[in-house]
């Protein structure tokens, strides 16, 4: 188990190294000269040259990379090319907004996904089960932001139950915080709920068909107890999807934040992409990949706890 975790951790560090290095060079090679994006098209060549010197893109690319890397390993991701504030401060300011929404969305999808998945797994072919199948196609077809727009119209502007846009920090008001993140979280979670439910339902049915379930029944165990065995064995598949969802939601947050005008890392990504603000984009990449690695590591630990075979690896 210990060596297994070590291996996964090393694999995660390798992933981080490969992705950030790749991103660094792709971004630099693709953007080339970032100054028009940063200063606008009206800037004079002299202004552009001054800017290039200031942000250091007049140096050889490898020097820049070494400079960035040697700072990055200490946790310093440089300064934004636009505001000249530390990238870390920018991220720290935006992260709570996105994490609030994504975390809440993950909780919602876990709770409802599991309940719906079990309900459908217990009664396959029922009306409820068919509705899930249909909903999974419909939600696949409707992009999250579209749902977001509809939710805003209906619940915020129409009924006035929630805030239409903007973010309220929980330090100011917990109730306000919940009201401000509910709609974006729901918009994000709907697709994830259906995916988790479908995955759980399918693996539930698959496990239910396995020999050992018949043997458990033949021992006289009650339906509830047998269901517990089935659930325990279908949990790994559902947990894997849940972990994938969390990462997916981090990405999906970009669009949802735009719809709900939340100043999170999504909007920061969009702005930095438009301006060619490479240090911020790199900071965002590192942060996201770290999230991915941590989540996957947690998943491995949980899977090891659920599935004894993993432990022996």
């Amino acid at each position, binding site marked *: 188990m210990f060596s297994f975790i070590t291996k996964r951790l090393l694999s995660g560090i390798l992933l981080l190294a490969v992705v950030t290095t790749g991103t660094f060079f792709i971004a630099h090679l*693709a953007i080339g000269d970032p100054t028009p994006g940063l200063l606008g098209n009206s800037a004079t060549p002299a202004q552009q040259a001054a800017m290039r010197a200031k942000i250091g893109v007049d140096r050889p690319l490898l020097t820049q990379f070494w400079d960035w890397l040697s700072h990055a390993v200490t946790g310093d991701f440089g300064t934004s090319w636009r505001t000249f504030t530390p990238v870390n401060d920018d991220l720290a300011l935006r992260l709570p907004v996105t994490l609030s929404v994504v975390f809440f969305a993950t909780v919602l999808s876990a709770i409802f996904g599991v309940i719906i998945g079990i309900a459908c797994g217990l009664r396959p072919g029922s009306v409820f*089960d068919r509705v899930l199948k249909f909903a999974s196609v*419909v939600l696949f077809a409707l992009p999250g932001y579209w749902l977001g727009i509809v939710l805003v119209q209906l619940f915020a502007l129409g009924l006035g139950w929630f805030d239409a846009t903007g973010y309220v920090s929980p330090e100011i008001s917990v109730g306000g915080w919940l009201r401000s993140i509910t709609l974006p979280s729901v918009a994000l979670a709907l697709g994830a709920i259906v995916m988790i439910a479908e995955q759980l339902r399918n693996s539930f049915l698959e496990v239910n068909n396995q*020999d050992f379930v*018949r043997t458990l029944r033949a*021992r006289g165990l009650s339906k509830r107890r047998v269901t517990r065995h089935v659930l325990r064995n279908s949990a790994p598949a559902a947990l894997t999807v849940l972990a994938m969802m969390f*990462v997916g939601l981090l990405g999906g947050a970009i*669009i949802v934040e735009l719809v709900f005008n939340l100043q999170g890392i999504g909007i920061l*990504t969009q702005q930095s992409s438009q301006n060619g603000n490479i240090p911020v984009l790199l900071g965002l990449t590192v942060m996201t990949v770290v999230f991915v690695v941590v989540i996957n590591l947690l998943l491995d630990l949980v899977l090891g706890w659920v*599935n004894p075979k993993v432990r022996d690896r």
Partner: protein
Amino acid sequence: MTAAPFPANLAPVKRVSLWRRFLRRPAGVIALVVMILIVLVAVLAPWLAPYDPNLVKLRITNVGPGGDHILGGDSGGRDILSRLIYGARTTLFGAAITCVSAVLIGVPAGVCAGYFGGVTDRVLTWISDALQSIPVLLMLMIVAAGTGQSFPVLMVVLGLFMAPGYYRITRGRAQAVRKEPYIDAARVSGVTNPRILRTHMARAVYPPIVVQSALTAGLAIGMQAGLQFLGIGSAQTPSWGQMISNGMLVINTHGLILLWPSIALGLTIASLAFIGTTLADLISIRVEQPTRRMRLRARQELAKAPASAELPDRVASGTHAHEVADCALRIDNLRVGYPSPAGVKEVVRGVSLDAGPGEVLGIVGESGSGKTQTMFAVLGLLPIGGTAVSDGIHVNGKEVGGLPALERAALLGRSIGYVPQEPMTNLDPSYTIERQLVEPLRQVQGMSKAAAKARAREVLVRVGITDVDRVLRSYPHQISGGMAQRVLIAGAVSGRPSLLVADEPTTALDVTVQAEVLELLRELQQEYGMALVIVTHNFGVVADICDRLVVMKDGRIVETGAVEQIFRSPADPYTAELISASLDDADGRVELDKAHVGGEDGAR
């Protein structure tokens, strides 16, 4: 070889093409028609669109549907219908780029990984996992920052991130094909690797790739619209995502402007999704969930009026040896069927048998003869969709066939014990052996925790396990097959049942272990005075421990009798065939061949 007649009574296997089966599904057909229409609109856009999609007429700014402009104008004064039609072009073009690049990256990589394995496989799989774990949109935004927002480039990058889907499918298939003996044969006879891959892989991989492409295209279209919604892409190229983004700005005053592109987008992705799921249903081997109506119909068909001269099949086969009241088990005219598109498929067609207390009854027959299904019906644990009707199932002299499911289930673990065939798949992999033995004792027998633990140890010792402590602590994957079968036997007898049913209890075991397990069953049966019904295809097993014998073929009983009598003079040619097939001497083999060909001619 050439003389052997082709079995005429086997229904010819219908090989209906995937395409024809697809056309029988209404959801799939509708989705396909919609998709074809959208493709036509995209291809014919220059001829279909009434106006230039970028032509600005201030007069029609935010004008509703009607007049010259069928769907009205948008907030920029442009004709909505024309923009929708050209948007279809942009959308499908982008999706096509993504799918093609994903296939071109994913499929060759998957084939290489699956076929060559080893380091190639590990490296490629690591890359695939890595691609799947990075948020796509973030990467696309980074690429978009530099590429001058060129959409084709973005869609190729998206294709790279979609490639793992194809990679997984082809890798799995390639691994499966690699294990096939004919691949080795091809290699030995000097066929080159690329040629093997081309000829043998293409066909196996084709259907799931089509499914994956439908889903990939749907995802690509959604992602593309999302990027356009975020303002990426040229303003001069009409696109649905851009139209949605524009529509959002005026949603409160002119909601329709948002509605049209949303419908177009939703319809396109949904039809792709329906095409994909319909195809996936058709090619998967997943068991269809029978509806309640199908189950009801199966029951009615099975229960149809029995006994008439024209339908000899409806008369029960087999005989009883004991009075009802004296039976540990008695089955009267049992039928088991599964719903199928053509009505109901009967796998057990009128079976009657019985076993007295303390008697060992063997049920023999080749696979597919219905012996295991008969036993599942006795337990009341038929697989999904299975329906059993009978004139009576008696356990210990009591009719139980008509009992409600819950009361029926109450017999299990108390009156009836069950020993399964395959030891390794019949233990729950997630729990320790101790937990699996103790749980039924506590719940079913109502024992205290300590008493249940003590009983579990005691039974394990009884079934011949020496290091009881280690086995109790172990998970199923940590013990051997023979050990697991002993554990399962211990579980079956720990509730002291009066009837033990064993389904091929030795088939999955090593030959040396087989005899021991059989001997154990025999001992336990005598010690506890249980009736033992043992399903097998092995006459060695029968000769070893059975008192009486039932021979089954095609869901019916062909012969019932005492073991010695059947061995000495089998009444049915099929029984004789089975017996000689079990004997290993050369003469028997020759006779068997003769008997087999002759028997087939005679029977058909």
